[in-house]
């Protein structure tokens, strides 16, 4: 079982969700985060005071899935989230040891 964490641009959420649905990913958890990276924030000026905004709003997706689906899912995310401009985000993959569905007490692959 793997966990995919993807940081994407907020306005790409719908497209990514649909791309994942197409390959059969049925569950995910989404949160609002702030990203810091190469994409430099714009300089904002408020009434004469200047600030560089480093942290930009991003969306983080967390998806736990069976090993065989990982490559396909990563591909789908990358394709749907890409704009080609700096700040498109990243995808991280890591191992998960177990998953439990609270409702049914199911464990492992059946639970994701």
């Amino acid at each position, binding site marked *: 079982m793997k966990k995919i964490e993807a940081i994407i641009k907020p306005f790409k959420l719908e497209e990514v969700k649909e791309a994942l649905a197409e390959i059969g990913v049925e569950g995910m958890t989404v949160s609002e985060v702030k990203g810091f990276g190469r994409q430099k924030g714009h300089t904002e000026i*408020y*009434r004469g005071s200047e*600030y560089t905004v480093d942290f930009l709003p991003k969306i983080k997706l967390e998806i736990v899935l069976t090993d065989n689906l990982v490559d396909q899912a990563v591909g789908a995310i990358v394709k749907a989230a890409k704009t080609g401009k700096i700040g498109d985000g990243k995808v991280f993959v890591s191992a998960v040891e177990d998953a439990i569905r609270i409702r049914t007490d199911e464990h492992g692959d059946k639970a994701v």
Partner: protein
Amino acid sequence: MLEAYLTNGDPTVPLKTGPKDKDGNPTLPPEWAKLSADALAAAAPSTATSGPGHNAWMMASAALVLFMTLPGLALFYGGLVRRKNVLSVCAQCLGCAGLVTVLWWAFGYSLVFGKSFNSPYLGGSEFFFFKGVNSAPNTDYSYWVSQNVFACYQLMFAIITPALIVGAIAERMKYSAIMLFIALWMFVVYFPMAHMVWGISGLMNGVWNGGSPDHYPAAAIKAIDFAGGTVVHMTSGWSALILCLILGKRLGFGKEKMAPHNMVLCMVGTGMLWVGWYGFNAGSAVAADGVAANAFTTTTLATATAGFVWALIELIHKGHASILGFCSGIVAGLVVITPACGFVSPNGAMIVGLVAAVIPYIFVVFVKGAIGYDDALDTFGVHAVGGTTGAIITGILAVPAKLADGKVNPDAVNPNLAANVDKFIHSGTLVVQQLEAVAITLVLSVVGSLVLGFIVKLVIGLRPTPEEETVGLDLTDHQEEGYI
């Protein structure tokens, strides 16, 4: 009774459909023909007569001016600070309302609008603890408005003035220090200033203080300030600058993002300030009369124009018009028209609106950046600069009540200028009077705030610890969070 109501004296039918002259203008309604000449004179200009409408308007105006502070200014300022300090700004406005009311009741009203001291600088002691302040008018200020309503109306000015200071020192001054500073400041700066400008025996009360033989001299400076360009905006604005210099910058100023945390609140506050300001400006006629009507009109034109022009300048200068730009322009327009509103014409107001956008814009965007003081919410840039600009421009644009030959000026907007002020307008020297008033206001505000600022710093200290400031004043000073 309804029948009588419908057939007699109805405001509209007989008037609007009465006989017309050959140009189609209605002539005087027939029932008026029955009235005596005196009664006719009283009836003709509906606003310039005795009646309950004056008290009604002054009560409404007092409520509107309170509305400017609570919740208006609290929202305007509250939306501009960071999330962690929103409540501290509210607490400062609420604290002003409470503290100043108690001071006003005990001493303030009397020190400003009394005259037992027979002094150009301070009023008297006759109204201490609101003694004798009842529903009869105080004829020094109005024949038609109850003195207690007048006193409450003026209280609302005394509340909002120190609350304006808060904008410059937001996010980094201890609550106790602010409250102590304001308590002292009322006695040292506000009460004397308000008496000098509006008190019947005041030093700079050019319109009303013609002097009283054996008691007090006529105003030495024949300045005019309709609703508080000097008394309210210059005092608060210049004091704010001094205090913010004594205090120093916010931690992280220039490095961290200190953008407004909630521009919607700021917009709401702006709308409320504008609406409430009608009480402030048109209410300053202390009557629902033609002077009030003119002040209402000039306030509307100057404010809307200033908001529009500020946004336009931004569009040209930066490529977009921001909400903050609109709001800043609107407030600047309101500030600059304040001293002028009862003395200038609608077209004068359009000029005021233009100037009110340009000059504060320059200060807020260029001068502040260049000098680098941390006037957090631009109290100096808008109120001090705007109030000063307004006081001066009033001297240029004021319309005389009578022409140089003594005939009534057909374009007059305020007949009260005839007695003492017209001659300065005709000689083109009213602006000199205004500059003198500006100078005195500036000196009193700066020196007063300098002394008081250091006293408070010495006695209880001005700033919270850096950790407290970082955590935010809401939790530190009030143990509450704005939103959870």
